[in-house]
């Protein structure tokens, strides 16, 4: 017996729809910094759980915060914590889930590619424009034996708003009262001096092309472009090279409050690299969609356990075990659906 046409059509359509429902799509947006890590995770997670597919748009931390408030995405990602004002705008409580950490490194273009030792106030003065020459006593006194040319320091900063800038200006505000009053901490600030580059790529490109330049980029960019990086003096007095280990050390020694909104710049640990920052995934505590909420919780638990092992090969710093346990506990507090 053949089915009447409309019924056959409906049957076919419902079968197709059923198949489409079987694969769930979760959307996220935000930080460009965490994008390579997220890509790797989504790729690996697709093998762990083929029923869910993740889609991430790296539009920047500010964009990620805006989209999660507007609920156009299932999760956001940000390099800077959300302010109280922004959290108040959201229709529900948003949880900050730290996932990986990274470092802002100071890189430069000098003949011979020496490894410079710099402390916080000197870096701040360079960016304030008060230290203008490479062979200034402030730099030379920390680097005996390094040939510093008698040329101007050409500062390079970011033109676009960015979490990288947020972490860097947060550090400068902590080590230099003049920076704190004159410029402050933000994703985009009024730079007292210097050229602007768009994105980490713009800044690293500018530095590689022009001798005498000095700027800040994410650790990954300096490593992959084989650029020299400076050792920065931490509060314990040691000059530390940026690496995934020194960032994890900073995380271990940082003061982390209960809501995980913290700044880890200038962390007190002996091996800590002072200009580090963590990336957060932003999710609502109360997940309205039971399917999506369940998948979100499962993914977060996987990322904070198996996912952390994938961080170091990509030049990200994984969270130390003590912090992972605290975060996993927070993830289990996410309420899924109407139960």
């Amino acid at each position, binding site marked *: 017996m053949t089915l009447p046409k409309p019924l056959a059509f409906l049957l076919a359509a419902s079968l197709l729809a059923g198949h489409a429902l079987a694969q769930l799509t979760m959307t996220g947006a935000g930080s460009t910094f965490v994008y390579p890590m997220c890509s790797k995770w989504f790729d690996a997670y697709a093998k762990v759980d083929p029923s869910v597919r993740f889609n991430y748009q790296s*539009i*920047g*931390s*500010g*964009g990620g915060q*805006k989209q999660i408030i507007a609920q156009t995405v299932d999760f956001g990602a940000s390099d800077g914590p959300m302010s109280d004002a922004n959290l108040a705008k959201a229709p529900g409580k948003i949880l900050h889930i730290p996932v990986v950490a990274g470092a802002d490194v100071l890189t430069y273009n000098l003949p011979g590619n020496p490894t410079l030792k710099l402390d916080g106030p000197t870096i701040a003065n360079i960016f304030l424009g008060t230290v203008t020459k490479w062979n200034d006593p402030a730099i030379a006194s920390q680097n005996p034996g390094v040939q510093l040319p008698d040329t*101007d320091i*050409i500062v390079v900063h970011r*033109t*676009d*708003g*960015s979490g990288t800038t947020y972490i860097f200006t947060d550090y400068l505000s902590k080590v230099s009262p003049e920076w704190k009053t004159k*410029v*402050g*901490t*933000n*994703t*985009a*600030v*009024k*730079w007292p001096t*210097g*050229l*602007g*580059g*768009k994105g980490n790529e*713009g800044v690293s*490109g*500018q530095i590689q*092309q*022009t001798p005498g330049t000095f700027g800040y980029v994410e650790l990954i960019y300096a490593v992959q472009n084989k650029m020299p990086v400076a050792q920065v003096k931490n509060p314990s007095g040691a000059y530390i090279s940026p690496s995934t280990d020194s960032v994890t050390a900073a995380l271990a020694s940082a003061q982390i409050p209960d809501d995980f909104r913290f700044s880890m710049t200038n962390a007190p640990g002996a091996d800590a690299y002072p200009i580090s920052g963590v990336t957060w995934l932003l999710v609502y505590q109360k997940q309205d969609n039971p399917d999506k909420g369940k998948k979100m919780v499962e993914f977060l638990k996987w990322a904070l356990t198996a996912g952390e092992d994938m961080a170091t090969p990509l030049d990200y710093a994984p969270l130390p075990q003590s912090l992972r346990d605290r975060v996993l506990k927070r993830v289990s507090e996410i309420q899924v659906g109407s139960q």
Partner: protein
Amino acid sequence: MTTTAPPIAAARMKAPSRLGDRLFSGFTFLMAATVFLLICLVGWQLWAGALSSIHKFGLHFLVSTDWDPGNDVYGALPFIYGTLVSSLLALLIAVPLSVATAIYLTELAPLWLRQPVISLIEMLAAIPSVILGLWGIFVMVPWLRINILPFLRHYLGWCPLFQGSVNGPCMLAGGMIIAIMIIPIITSVSREILTSVPHLQREAAYALGATRWEVTRIAVLSYAKRGIFGAVILGLGRALGETMAVTMVIGNTPQISASLFAPGYTLASVIANEFAEASDLCVQSLFEIGLVLFLVTILVNLLAQFVLKTFAGATVKQ
């Protein structure tokens, strides 16, 4: 027998239908009106998006040099200065090059050379802005920094235009890259204008005993003056709005400096750089910058129309 139809028969004859003509003129009018409406819509949308910022800063926005996203204080003067100076610089470099090229191609070049050169120039126009910007960062700016700028500073350092430290990305680099982008359009249109000069003009000048250059100057250029001016305005319009290539080589520093070696910032560049991460008041200030760019472009075009009308020039009366 007369050929005109008798009145009664004429009344019964239907006049040829004018429906097709009416439809055609109606349709073309609609298309023209759509273009006009689109421009108005863009202007209105920019105004609506910028309202908060306009209310907060008023006219002070146009004269303030303070661009501070951290403290939510915005002023557009450095960008207006950057846009106008880089465009003017581009015109100064491009117009002599383009008009000379056009004259060469129409008057002096051997016939076998004309088409290949024309194709090459059109290919220059086809290069995307971003690619040219990349070339600017990796080839043009280092070349300027190593060869040209120190030379200019050494010999012309007495002039405030050529003073200051040489960093690489600068206003001069921005002007040069815009010049490269507008050369094809000015050359093409000038060439069209020059080709359209009637041969009679040239022949008359030759008949009066003029030399090659005098023929070009008296007969061809005088006739084509207005058209070439129109071509320059087209180029200027493109120069004012050029974004990506300029952003990559101009240094992106909101400051006003007399020196061409200093970095600058243009209206289009600041929108391209900051729009993605901007929030609230910053977005509206960027909309206001967009509105300023829109108005500057319209103003420049109106000024050009005015100049064309006033200095009508020696148009030949037939």
